[in-house]
């Protein structure tokens, strides 16, 4: 007898991912209990802090934007069977690309020229920072996981060097560049207020629209183009891909470019959208958060948007939560990210046997019924 019954599709893409996330949150609840707080109160405070008013929603969506970019970046690489842990460094240097373009152009050209070039700069440097590990994996046989980890640290060193020694604004005490104002992305609250809706100020800017466009773009690219078919073939079975005429080396480099460009766009949200200057550590945590988002969202843009929204809520709600409950800080959100990566990624098959059992039982009953029938 074949023990592996095929589960219905809705169980596979609906029930199991939710079961995984619930397990992660159940453990997180135990941690909250262990530090002497009430998980129920924590959730209430978290939701009020992240969705309670228009300012909170703005912040939540601003964080969501970053998670969408890095989540998509990890997912695109996953589809080709590549694990890009370098989102952290790609996002960081993507911001450098956006900032350098803005610093070079903001006095020279109007903002409708400077902003697209800033976006292009972010995508280009992000892509470059992922393409090198991709190239080394494809043509030199070095493991992409290790190389992308190393590149995160190299990116951090480059940024510290540039900010402290080269890009620091003259006379500034902290390592920050001069401010550029004309290359700033429009803020959503300004637009809505201009249209007559009264909303509070928040850092949410048009990067969210860019992120959603990227979702549609990735969905079309991966599932509705010959290129996407090649990518999925490569991820599913590299040997089959070779027989189908795919050049796996070339494809690896291209996929890493796309992945890195997506991660680099975090720099657009942070540098062009919010800070309007270059500074240190603006992308910290989003690269690793993207791994959690991609695993939770099952590498599908729709799942990634939902997972990003959840992490946006956690990120913003976690900040507010620490005012209500001083023992719970943003670090709790980091721990939850770790738990989600554990249960949705490494232990993804943990709940499968329990969920499989009822279907197995149903299937056996059905076969028994047909055998007994006329």
């Amino acid at each position, binding site marked *: 007898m074949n023990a592996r019954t095929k589960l219905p599709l809705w169980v596979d893409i609906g029930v199991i991912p939710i079961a995984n996330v619930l397990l992660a949150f159940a453990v997180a609840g135990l941690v909250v209990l262990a530090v002497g707080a009430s998980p129920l109160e924590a959730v209430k405070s978290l939701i009020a802090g992240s969705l309670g008013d228009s300012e909170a929603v703005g912040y939540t969506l601003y964080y969501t934007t970053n998670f969408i970019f890095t989540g998509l970046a990890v997912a695109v690489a996953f589809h080709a069977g590549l694990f890009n842990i370098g989102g952290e460094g790609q996002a960081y240097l993507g911001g450098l690309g956006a900032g350098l373009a803005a610093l070079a152009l903001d006095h020279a050209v109007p903002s409708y020229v400077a902003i697209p070039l800033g976006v292009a700069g972010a995508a280009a440097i992000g892509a470059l920072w992922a393409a090198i590990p991709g190239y080394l994996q494809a043509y030199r046989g070095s493991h992409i996981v*290790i190389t992308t980890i*190393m590149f995160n640290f190299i990116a951090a060193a480059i940024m510290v060097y540039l900010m402290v020694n080269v890009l620091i604004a003259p006379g500034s005490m902290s390592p920050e560049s001069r401010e550029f104002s004309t290359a700033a992305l429009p803020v959503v609250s300004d637009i809505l207020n201009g249209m007559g809706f009264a909303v509070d100020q928040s850092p949410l800017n048009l990067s969210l629209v860019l992120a959603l466009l990227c979702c549609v773009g990735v969905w079309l690219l991966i599932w509705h183009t010959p290129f996407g078919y090649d990518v999925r073939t490569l991820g599913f079975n590299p040997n089959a891909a070779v027989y189908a005429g795919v050049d796996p080396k070339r494809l690896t480099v291209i996929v890493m470019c796309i992945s890195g460009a997506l991660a680099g766009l975090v720099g657009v949200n942070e540098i062009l959208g919010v800070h309007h200057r270059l500074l240190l550590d603006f992308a910290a945590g989003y690269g690793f958060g993207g791994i959690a988002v991609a695993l939770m969202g099952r590498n599908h843009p729709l799942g990634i948007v939902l997972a990003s929204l959840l992490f946006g809520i956690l990120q913003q709600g976690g900040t507010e939560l620490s005012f209500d409950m001083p023992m719970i800080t943003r*670090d709790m959100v980091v*721990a939850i990210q770790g738990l989600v990566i554990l249960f949705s990624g490494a232990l993804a098959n943990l709940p499968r046997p329990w969920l499989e059992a009822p279907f197995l039982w149903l299937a056996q009953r059905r076969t028994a019924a047909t055998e007994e029938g006329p």
Partner: protein
Amino acid sequence: MDWLAIAFQTFSATLRVATPLILCAMGGLFSERSGIIDVGLEGKMLASAFAAAAIAAVTGSPWLALGGAVAVSCAMALLHGFACITHRGNQVVSGVAINILASGLTVVFGIAWFQAGGQTPSLANSARFMPLAGGFSILVYVALAVVALTWWVVARTRFGLRLRAVGEAPAAIDAAGISVTWLRYRALLICGVFTGIAGTYLSISQNANFSKDMSAGQGYIALAALIFGKWRPLPAFGACLVFGLLDAVAIRLQGVSVAGIGEIPVQFIQALPYVLTVILLAGLIGKAVAPKAIGVPYEKEH
């Protein structure tokens, strides 16, 4: 100051900085030679650093702290094994999860127990592993002994032979009637013991308390050293010393102008271990070949 004194000082500083790297690299060696990728060295070291500092702060005993830290580190190693060996999960994903989990939970529990922004209280000397007569704490000597032990176990014992075999051809080990699962779990537990000692050294020997994210990427440097040493004990030990030397020299070279080159940016020296590892992996200086079965969950044939 004469050259001999400078050389000796640099050597001592190198050995002190390299100790956590050495312990983590030897731990990672057992894990990776058995076929399990260990990206989670960083997280295990961080969690055990917190455990050691917390226990030392409460009990005042460095030895109890060491025991607790090793227990915490082994528990995380078992979690890694549960995900990767028992449930055949992705080893890199599991390692990343352990790192992020440790980074978050240490601060959450630190704030809950000590109310100091995630730091643990400053320890009295009696609660720490202080330098002995030779100028090094006992854990430095332990790290050196661990290198010798690792070499002997991996190269000269039956367990070591099986360890190497299971990382290259687990099916052969299985066919010989040896449990792949149990062998790999043992390798991960050894890794847990060593990373636990590394964390203890970090928080109650090198420093006098735990602070947020205090491992600061050293687990990854140890992983780089392990690869740089081509997954062999003595070369990996050498790589740890070189990376430790770079770290020790980086502090001394700050603001110093080198003849002919000018001032070397500190960030360049700090990034050098990572750059060198990338260059090595690219096959430009020798070739680093990983254990053949690394990263592949073993599935028994029926």
